[in-house]
């Protein structure tokens, strides 16, 4: 799995209320997603393009268990999130939804608008114009398998299909 896109940089402790504001939680995903990160960058949702990569500091996704935080990013086309560290529930939610999440110190080096290529399996992030490579921690195999399946639901589809055959 490899992906090329523009990079969006954010700081530390990006919380789930910034990613998925509570006042839009009863709305449809497209409405909720249009307010994703607006507290920090009002133009993010309208300017982000499919294939882009989000890079942040420590404790990304801190706060609520609402998986719409990860879902909104995926809906807007973000292909992976690289952060110095993740809040636990967000990390699990992202994987379950098939959104790759990698631990790496990219936020110190990368700037918003850089073009980059990310190889998910190896965790190598290449800044194309700068000809620089940043090594992120590869995801554990168990979790990479879930990502490769497309998330928990496709993984369960296979499991239940198998169980039905056995029965």
């Amino acid at each position: 799995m490899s992906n090329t896109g523009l990079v969006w940089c954010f700081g530390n402790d990006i919380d789930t209320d910034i990613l998925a504001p509570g006042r839009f939680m009863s709305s449809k995903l497209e409405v909720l997603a249009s307010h994703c990160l607006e507290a920090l960058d009002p133009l993010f949702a309208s300017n982000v393009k499919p294939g882009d990569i989000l890079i942040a500091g420590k404790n990304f996704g801190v706060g609520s268990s609402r998986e719409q935080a990860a879902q909104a990013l995926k809906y807007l086309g973000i292909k992976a999130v690289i952060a110095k560290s993740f809040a636990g529930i967000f990390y699990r939610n992202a994987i379950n939804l098939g959104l790759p999440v990698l631990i790496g110190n990219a936020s110190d080096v990368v700037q918003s608008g850089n073009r980059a290529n990310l190889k998910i399996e190896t965790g190598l992030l290449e800044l194309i114009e700068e000809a620089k490579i940043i090594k992120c921690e590869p995801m554990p195999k168990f979790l990479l398998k879930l990502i490769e399946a497309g998330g928990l639901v496709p993984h369960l589809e296979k499991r239940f299909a198998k169980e039905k055959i056995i029965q």
Partner: protein
Amino acid sequence: MGQTLAQKIISKACSKDYVTPGEIEVAKIDLAMIHDSGGPRRVKPILDHLGVGVWSSKKIVVVSDHYVPEFDSETKAIQKLTRDWVKSNNIQAFYDQMGICHVVVPENGHLKPGMFVVGGDSHSPTGGAFGAYMFGIGATEMAGVLATGEIWIKVPETIKIDWSGQLNEFVTAKDMMLYTCGRLGMDGGKYQAVEYTGSAISSLSMQERMTVSNMTAELGGQAGLIKPDITTKRYLENVGITNIETEFWESDEDADFLDSFSFNANDLVPQIAAPHSPANSRNITEEEKIAVDVAYIGACTGAKMSDLRMAANILKGKELASGVRLLVAPASKKDQNLAKDEGIMKVFEDAGATILPNSCGICAGYGSERLDADVICVSSTARNFQGRMGALSSGVYLGSPYTVAASAITGCITDPRHFIEGKYE
């Protein structure tokens, strides 16, 4: 090698004698708790898509507490969907608008020491106060749990937080956790298990312990455990659970901890966390005199019976500062009824408070009440992220129920110790 309390519970859930921190294991679920926001409306489409039902209707508890009370077509539809789903899945344990899940589930006797529990809400570590390994997950993962009855878990290390000494008057579990968040940061828990020990922890009432475990979420821990003891036993007996074995459910003396922190409760003073992070906490003496518009006693963190008692203790016979709104949303119907019997609800009414429904309310930014632009709020809740409780320009200061009540009377952030008998006029 001995095991920590977290390891012991996870070993049992994995049907093993020993589990090793860092390894990924698949564990069986003893109980799954869901609410109206992340629950039926989100898991039903996934279960339908997979063509499977729930693994065990007896091991599921449903609590409607987020979109409560229903007030428009969207929230009405959510409540109807929740009720229909509960009925069609034959789930007996359904608490429809009875209060907030983290309070309602234990008060109805669903939690016991040694249980391995998931909740569809980030404050699920609250269950750790009962010696249960309880943690929050998202809706897709919950759908997986409901379909299979199991979940993968990376066996956690345990971080020990020890509180020696005893809390002083007007200093609370909430102050302990704001202080801990300030010292260790919102990622201090490293998504590992946190275990709270020491004389100041074992002296806490069950609901105060729940506040400690609850705010493990703000500390970034996966679970926040307190070993069960006589206080746990008494609470559980009161909700109809007897024959509880507490002796086994504690960390072995030779268990290995990732880290240990020691704090002394004797030295702790009331804490206040400034916008926009619970880790932005400091001694209240540094923040006094900041004017507030709204004082909020609410949420699983800050509106249980013990919290309502604290607030009423300060408010009794006093009036609100002119222009300040005091909003009180008791965490459960049961606690509100108890508060009524004790005359506490009357104290709030006499002081001029507005009583709100038993729900997550403003804390989660749901419902019809929200903070308007530029409003400054002092709140007994757990989170003060920017925009969480309303407008992006609003600001929330987090403190104990004592602090919120004291601030409501003076109109600015106030150290509740000024209200020690006879001091405040």
